[in-house]
């Protein structure tokens, strides 16, 4: 089929008008308004954390007062744990860990703590600051001796939320480790300061 020149011009003009009309109609369409509120932590969020660091022996509380000569050297500590947020800021969980210190008499003091942990997490953009309190038990061994007693552990941390899945940071904690025996003069409360760096996997 052949078109005459005037006919061709008319078709091109109609197409252009149609396109122009479509564009005008599109510009007149209104987009529905949405709002996105970012919530860094939601109830039900969970995470697993792994921490490694140093165990600093501080002093013993004895029946006669404080003894700063613990005869323990700077040691190592680590733990792995799990927590779940029961609100958008509070979490409950627990952990297993270890710590060890060489003694003056060339022996090793080894402790294996396990505890439940309650935390409140302050959030400043990507910085999260968990303040936690743990209570649990600690299995301790030294030479041929062992002891299982309770422990308390307040701590504070600082973590950078690198991605939705991962955060990393550090935490400082204080361990209260009582040892009670039938002979009261043997009673001691060990005090340790832990400094650890850690990773958290969120899911």
């Amino acid at each position: 089929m052949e078109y005459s020149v005037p006919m061709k011009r008319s078709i091109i003009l109609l197409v252009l008008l149609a396109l122009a009309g479509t564009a005008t109609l599109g510009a007149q369409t209104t987009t529905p308004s949405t709002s996105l509120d970012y919530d860094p932590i939601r109830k039900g969020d969970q995470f697993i954390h792994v921490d490694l660091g140093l165990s600093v022996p501080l002093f013993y509380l004895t029946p006669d007062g404080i003894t700063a000569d613990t005869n323990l050297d700077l040691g190592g500590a680590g733990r792995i744990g799990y927590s779940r947020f029961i609100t958008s800021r509070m979490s409950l969980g627990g952990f297993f860990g270890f710590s060890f210190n060489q003694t003056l008499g060339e022996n090793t003091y080894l402790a294996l703590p396990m505890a439940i942990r309650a935390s409140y997490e302050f959030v400043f953009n990507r910085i999260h600051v968990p303040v936690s309190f743990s209570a649990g038990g600690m299995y301790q061994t030294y030479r041929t001796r062992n002891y299982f007693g309770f422990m308390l552990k307040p701590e504070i941390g600082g973590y950078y939320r690198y991605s939705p899945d991962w955060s990393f940071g550090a935490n400082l904690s204080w361990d209260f480790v009582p040892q009670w025996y039938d002979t009261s003069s043997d009673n001691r409360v060990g005090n340790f300061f832990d400094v650890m760096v850690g990773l958290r996997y969120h899911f």
Partner: protein
Amino acid sequence: MKHLQGKTIQTLFIAAALAVLASGCSEDPIFSAVEAEVELKDPSVLGTVLTLVSHDGSLYTANGNLYSRTGGIGDWRKVSLPSGASRCSQVATTTEDGTGSMFGLFQNSDWSFHSIQRYTGTGWEPVTGATNGFAIKNGSGFIFFFREDSMDDSEGARIIQSAHRIAPDGTMTEILSGLQYYNDSGERLLDGEGNYLITNRAVYTSSGTVISNTTDVNTSSLTALAVNGSNVYVANGGYVWHYNGSAWTRFSHDADGPVYGLTYMEVAGKRLLLLPCSEGYGEVLLDDSGRPEAYQEPGKSAASSISTSARSQYSSTMDDWLLLSAFVVTDLVPAGNDYVLYVGVRDPLEDGLWGYYSETRREWNRE
């Protein structure tokens, strides 16, 4: 990870907690024991120490090497062994006051018997006819020499032993022979001191006469002997028997496990027996007549071999270890001390010779 349920993790925590709780606890304190620790010296005499003697103004001990300590002070120094010998396992003297002759039991590199030799001060003289020896002990004017005359492996180690005296001039006299030990039964030589020696089931004089003429002593698997003049003491894991020259009495002790030795101690107003055992050593206090009257752990009272202030440090060291031997030295001691205690520790980490000084170092430490 999403499928990791809180309940699964909870279960894991509880299971692990129960496993740890099931592992039990000891009653011995940890932090207070650590608090009582002392900085340890570098060890100078490692390994198995069974004997320590005083001879000619020096102390001698052996752990494979032979060591001396001049005047009982300063360092322990190695003494040259006889030609051809690789080890010195034991030393013994003919008198315990340091004036007698000293003999060594020497071994080849495979720990087989090499020789018994007398120390001349500059060298060694072999004892002729002394073969297959496995122990030498301090005697009174002689040393005891225990010999293994035969051992038949094909019959489950039937062992035949004999006991001898070796005089300072090297002459050897047989005391007992034909003692047979087979499949954990029979009679075998264990210890000797002064004018007495013991097997596992009898006490003999150095001439071979049985003096343990009571069933009670003779059937009690004796392990150790101590002698003070006419007072003879023998022990096993539960009792100490005392023989005053005419009668036997029995005393029950609480030393832990087998008793590996028995040492008489009389110095600075203290009179007691030391019982090295599988967990440190025990003490049996003696009355004025030498009769056992009480048992106690070291440091429990002023009558102890160590100061009451040293008890905690003892508990954090010796009390956990097997002790093979104990020695009380009163003459060759550093100035200011009434006595020095030495013990032979057998422990994977701490074995060797340890010492306690009555005044200048009231703590146990490596020698």
